[in-house]
């Protein structure tokens, strides 16, 4: 049953060295505070799964925590490349990492299959695409009814998934709204799930009944971390800090600058710092 825990404890109880882990959020609601807590606790040999690795995986890869990444877009959307990830892939710095690359459709279908308890996902994809030649986990099956060749990829089943959401109620049910991304599937596909939320409310009774809700029994732990998604955003709470994404390009371009930034902004900080990071963004929301 779900437990309300401080983030430090929620991460320590649910993540282990060598785990396969997804920190999901599709541009919106990226669980940055949870990722920073994982960095502070120094986990090693992680297999990081995520459709768009974004800054948090650039940071984990740059800190040498990843042995493998499974992804479908290793860029900083609208800005360019993820420079720490690129350094690891091109130069093996700070360590070589394995990569397993898919398309967004492949990843989305694989998460959905994981949530559905299926061993693989079947969809019409990768036709003519080079990824099928370099990723042995992209295979094909023949439709038993029409004979059509379809792509098949293994389902995604993380040991643990971390997401950020707007609200939990006192029982631990979770509400997500806005761009809802892949988070519901990523939680349901995982053995354990940790959710950071902007706030806890008594109940959702005054909200409309079709908002995406993860029932409390699908979640291991909830931590209240206002602003925990920065520089991503939480719809209705604060806007995306696009300037920070632009600035990251410069920070991550240099190995030493990156390390100094991580010390100052992650290692020597706590999850409580996130609330102040979004103060100026709340006014614009």
């Amino acid at each position: 049953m779900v437990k309300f825990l401080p983030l430090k404890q929620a991460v320590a109880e649910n993540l282990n060295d060598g785990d396969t882990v997804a920190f999901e959020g599709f541009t919106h609601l990226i669980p940055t505070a949870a990722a920073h807590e994982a960095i502070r606790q120094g986990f090693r040999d992680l297999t990081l799964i995520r459709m768009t690795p974004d800054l948090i995986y650039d940071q984990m890869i740059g800190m040498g925590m990843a042995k493998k990444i499974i992804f479908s877009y290793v860029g900083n959307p609208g800005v360019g490349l993820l420079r720490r990830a690129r350094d690891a892939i091109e130069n093996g710095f700070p360590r070589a990492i394995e990569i397993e690359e898919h398309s967004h459709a492949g990843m989305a279908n694989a998460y959905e299959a994981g949530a559905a308890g299926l061993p693989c996902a079947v969809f019409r994809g990768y036709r003519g695409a080079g990824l099928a030649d370099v990723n042995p986990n992209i295979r094909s099956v023949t439709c038993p009814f029409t004979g059509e060749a379809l792509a098949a990829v293994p389902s995604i089943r993380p040991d643990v998934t971390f997401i950020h959401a707007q609200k939990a109620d006192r029982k631990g049910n979770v509400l997500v709204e806005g761009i809802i991304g892949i988070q519901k599937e990523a939680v349901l596909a995982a053995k354990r799930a940790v959710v950071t939320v902007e706030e806890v409310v008594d109940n959702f009774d005054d909200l409309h009944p079709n908002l995406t809700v993860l029932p409390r029994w699908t979640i291991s732990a909830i931590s209240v971390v206002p602003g925990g998604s920065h520089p991503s955003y939480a719809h209705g709470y604060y806007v995306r800090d696009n300037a920070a994404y632009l600035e990251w390009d410069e920070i991550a371009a240099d190995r030493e600058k990156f390390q100094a930034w991580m010390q100052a902004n992650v290692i020597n900080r706590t999850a409580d710092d996130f609330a102040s990071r979004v103060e100026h963004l709340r006014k614009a929301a």
Partner: protein
Amino acid sequence: MSVQPGFTANEMMTIAASRALKNDDVCFVGIGAPSAACNVARLTHAPDITLIYESGTIGTAPDVLPLSIGDGELCETAVTTVAVPEMFRYWLQGGRISIGFLGAAQLDKFGNINTTVIGDYFHPKTRLPGGGGAPEIATSSKEIYITMAQTKRGMVEKIDFFTSFGHGEGGDHRQRLGIDTAGPTLLITDLAIWKPDPASKEFTVVSLHPGVTRQQVRETCGWVVKFAEALDETPAPSELELKTLRDLQARTKAAHEGTGKGKAA
């Protein structure tokens, strides 16, 4: 490279691309130049165009261009916002997209696109972001429009990696793979408008932007360029088109720089 006083080559490219979009199109929009072109179309001649971003926003009408495919404004102004699996299964794979609008790092004359790696996949010279939604956008959208600025490094005889399949080796290669959509039907660069030859599927220049010469097109393209017999000149941007694009870009610049100093990315 300014082609003529009054507007830049890049502006001409974006505006020429916007003109290709129709009011009843349902367009899967890539970030960057495609996004600018689609929104200029919406703000000028195609007010009811349906713009879809892969984050799940359907029928969005942003006031500023998004930095990412999932900026909040895309959701706030959308007709509806759906989960990512639904976006790719029901809307894209389900055949409900008329135009997929893509950019490219490398492009060949058959409209095959590489945004994955420069060099060998396993030992890349440059690791690029990769395909994201593009591999399936390229095969499930009814047609593909491509836009990019011309360079010899970008427009190459042979791409290093097939991120998105265009016409393959040309001719009926798509059909032979069982792909029943039209694939790339239009390429708009900063110098010209290109369309595939009906038989060979090789991109052929059909219109030069104002002030552009055949020689400029050849010098900035890595394959031997074919020109249509009847070569048009692209109409210069109208005052309204230019003003719409520039206002949009000014709003966008102010919005993205204005969010804060990013002290804790």
